[in-house]
């Protein structure tokens, strides 16, 4: 059995999981009188696929928003790569290498698929206003370099045919894929996925699962995902955090969590054999 408390270990299927890359310490988040997250701590290791599960309203999306820097917790600390993260604006968090997708699709509806995915590269594109007004030279070169990178991701996610389509016209499943492409374009160290399978049929879920596994395998990206489909969670993830009413009620491997009585009572229901 692999020792998951070691600094780094190798999983059964040969992937290397590294040390702790992000740690949430005693996070409490309140909105006025409502406590969305109550004293939650957990960590995410480099290269792993970490799932956050729980009933609706448990505070899972809020937790991702805390990681993104969009919500500032009233108590607790976020540690990234062994150092406490100072209070940052969301765009600064993005520049640290954290990218995400959103529960209710947050694509830029006025732009094409290609432009949307190119916005994922914004943290890497550095030419200034002056160079861009002239275009020829530095700006054009950077644009083409980044276009090449983006096209690789478009290939990877098989959305070549729709690259010039305005995003507003796409069906839900394709929009989700474009959002994933945008997040991948940022070449993130940590990828946050908020219900990437929501609203998909079995075939689409299989595709999406394959993409997620490929991303983790090929690029070594650490992934933290929120998901409701238990089958997906159990199959894909290395470790799982279970939340309910803002509290953590389980934390461990999928098997450990599946057999945890508190989790069963709150969420999984009674097992039928």
């Amino acid at each position: 059995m692999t020792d998951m408390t070691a600094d780094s270990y190798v999983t059964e299927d040969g992937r290397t999981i590294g040390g702790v890359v992000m740690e949430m310490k005693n996070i409490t988040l309140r909105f006025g009188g409502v406590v969305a997250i109550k004293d939650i701590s957990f960590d995410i290791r480099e290269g792993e696929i970490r799932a956050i599960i729980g009933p609706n309203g448990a505070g899972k999306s809020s937790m991702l928003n805390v990681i993104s820097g969009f919500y500032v917790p009233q108590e607790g600390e976020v540690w990234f790569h062994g150092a406490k993260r100072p209070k940052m604006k969301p765009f600064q968090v993005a520049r640290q290498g954290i990218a995400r997708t959103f529960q209710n699709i947050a694509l830029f509806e006025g732009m094409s698929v290609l432009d949307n995915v190119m916005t994922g590269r914004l943290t890497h594109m550095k030419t200034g206003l002056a160079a861009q007004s002239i275009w020829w030279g530095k700006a054009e070169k950077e644009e083409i370099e980044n276009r090449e990178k983006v096209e690789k991701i478009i290939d990877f996610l098989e959305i070549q045919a729709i690259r010039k389509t305005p995003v507003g016209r796409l069906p839900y499943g394709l929009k989700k894929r474009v959002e994933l492409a945008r997040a991948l374009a940022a070449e993130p160290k940590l990828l946050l996925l908020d219900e990437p399978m929501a609203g998909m049929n079995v075939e689409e879920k299989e595709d999406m699962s394959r993409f997620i596994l490929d991303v983790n395998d090929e690029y070594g990206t650490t992934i933290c995902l929120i998901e409701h489909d238990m089958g997906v969670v159990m199959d894909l993830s290395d470790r799982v955090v279970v939340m309910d009413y803002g509290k953590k009620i389980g934390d461990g491997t999928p098997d450990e969590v599946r057999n945890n009585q508190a989790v069963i009572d709150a969420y999984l229901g009674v097992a039928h054999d």
Partner: protein
Amino acid sequence: MPEQFMWAMEVMVNGLMTGVLYALVALGFVLIFKASGVFNYAQGVMALFAAMTLVGIQKGQVPFSHLINTIFGTEIHGFGWELAPWLAILLTAGVMVLFAWLVQKFILQHLVNQPDIILFMATIGLAYFLEGFADLMWGADIKTLDIGLPQGVNDWVESTTYNLFGYGFFIDNLDIVATVVAALLVTALILFAQYTKQGRAMRAVADDHQAAQSVGISLRFIWVMVWSVAGFVALVAGIMWGAKSGVQFSLSLIALKALPVLMLGGFTSIPGAIVGGLIIGVGEKLFEFLVGPYIGGATENWFAYVLALIFLVFRPQGLFGEKIIERV
């Protein structure tokens, strides 16, 4: 009592009165915004149109006479009658209801799911259209509005304050009437919005069009109703302002002044429109009185906006508006 201080007090009281008039125009905005999420830039022009229609109906003017005369070479100007004020007001209110219905049919219905900014720009288009239309219909010359409202300085106030403070306040009767009317109107509107079935339906529509439809509320009916009420409010505002300074183009600019009122009070609050109006009214008169002489005067052109801007930076939703919570 030092004369300078009394003078300042008088300016303040006049400011309050002006504030009431601003609030009247702002009220119309709030109503429409509450019920349809539309920021009706045309509210000021609606007040102008209502006032012009009132005068036209009352004096028996022939609508579009200038146009008809130009095309047909005729010389018609008036029907020759003069109507009683209450009848003229009633007929004008009817015209405003017709207007509301037309706006609903030709504009609102077609822009149901568009973002708010598109609707706002549509009302700017409406304002321009209505202005040209009103001028075409009744002529662009200045008209006097006389429906029998008491005018002139109120003697009772003057003599009482003189006896009390040794300084007589000049408060116009018209302003007093306006304050009373505004108070009645606001109370009626608040009661309407809170306690009647239609008022509740209106608030439902303001929150969520689709949800309101799904519980059986007819969006069209509510919109026609709301724009009619706003039209009536515009009529009252038009009467008050028109009696005060004549019915002319500058009346529509009052609408622009109502905007900082709304920014202060919050776009969705009826009491906010009043409080905002009073603050702006007093604020700009006092500023002009105290600071104006040192910087060239005419600060009333911009003071209200700068005040609202500064206020907004610290409290983006205004005094009473709903706090904007953003979620992802």
